[in-house]
């Protein structure tokens, strides 16, 4: 993973990491929409952010 990208844990897409990223910041994957939480800065570590499931059904 290059210094300003991480790999999405769900779908494997490249997710851009902003230069001024902070611990606890939420990054959104452009391909699959999952939200990733930056758990550590050095080394840059991410985890799936808790997502409250919206009621989407008909």
């Amino acid at each position, binding site marked *: 993973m290059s210094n300003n990208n991480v790999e999405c844990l769900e779908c494997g*897409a490249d997710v851009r990491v902003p230069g001024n990223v902070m611990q606890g910041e939420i990054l959104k994957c452009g391909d699959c929409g999952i939200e990733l939480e930056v758990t550590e800065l050095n080394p840059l570590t991410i985890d799936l952010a808790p997502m409250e499931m919206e009621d989407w059904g008909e």
Partner: protein
Amino acid sequence: MSRLQVGIVGASGYTGGELLRLLSQHPQVEVMQVTAGRNVGKFVHNVHPHLRGQLNLQFIADEGLQPCDILFLALPHGQAQQSIEHYTALAPRIIDLSADFRLHNPTDYATTYAHDHHAPTWLDRFVYGLPEINRQALIGANYASGVGCNATATTLALWALVKAGILNADQPIFADIKVGSSEAGSTPTPASHHPVRSGIVRPFQLTGHRHEAEVRQALRDCGDFDIRMAVTSVEMVRGVAVAVHVTLPTGLRERDLWQAYRGTWKGEPFVRIVHEQDGLHRHPEPRLLAGTNYADVGWEYDPTTGRTVLLAAIDNLGKGAAGSTVQCMNLMCGFDETTALTFGGIYP
């Protein structure tokens, strides 16, 4: 570089009209003649009102056709094959939007359309006009056949996992297809009469769909698939939405499916993968594709049972007909493949 001169035969129907709309915005071609049986002498906007103020063209009779660079045939099924010699004498490049030259195998044609083909020697001279699965053959070709709309949606829904070897020809493929009213064309019938067509969910053709042979042909390199298409008409004018019911191996991860889809579709200008975790639009939907050449593809997979639904949505007049034929023309003539096809749809 002067514009290529283009003619459309049968330009008063819905596919002919969509073709006219797209070509009128194409910087490298000029539509110089359009024929229509029952509308000779009328201006195109008398039949296609949205083209008012955009084109100053009148329909001519078939007999009035002049030689030109490219001829699009948007005739009812069965007519192109009866006068193919006449049309190929008029233009070095022909793109036929009907089903007449889609199936390469004459016996496939006879079983599907219940009569022998009138020009079988031409069948293998026409390249199947779905660029996403046949791009190399289309580049520089002279003759191309348009695609069937329901077949295109089904083929594109299956393509990624078939190519990746995750879905094999060892099971029946159940394709449940929802369609709009423009698929039946511009001629009114009792079934298209608004009071009985509006707001329906009408199972229309549930076995022996003519497009099954076309899908089998498209997938033939990967196996002989048992394609079972069933069509239901719903409240929609433009649009095809297909849900294909299959069973995959259990225990696959989302990334495995993403990898197969990205491997197949990455870089394709008109195919988008729609597989979202949240929001209203998690899967492909046809409404926001109206007027575009897009095909949106996606899936839903249950790792515990392997139960899978493969999804695709297109505009039957776009990627399912006129959009793909303009894309074919671009490939045949060496133009940028997306020329005149960049309208991205509107929403809501």
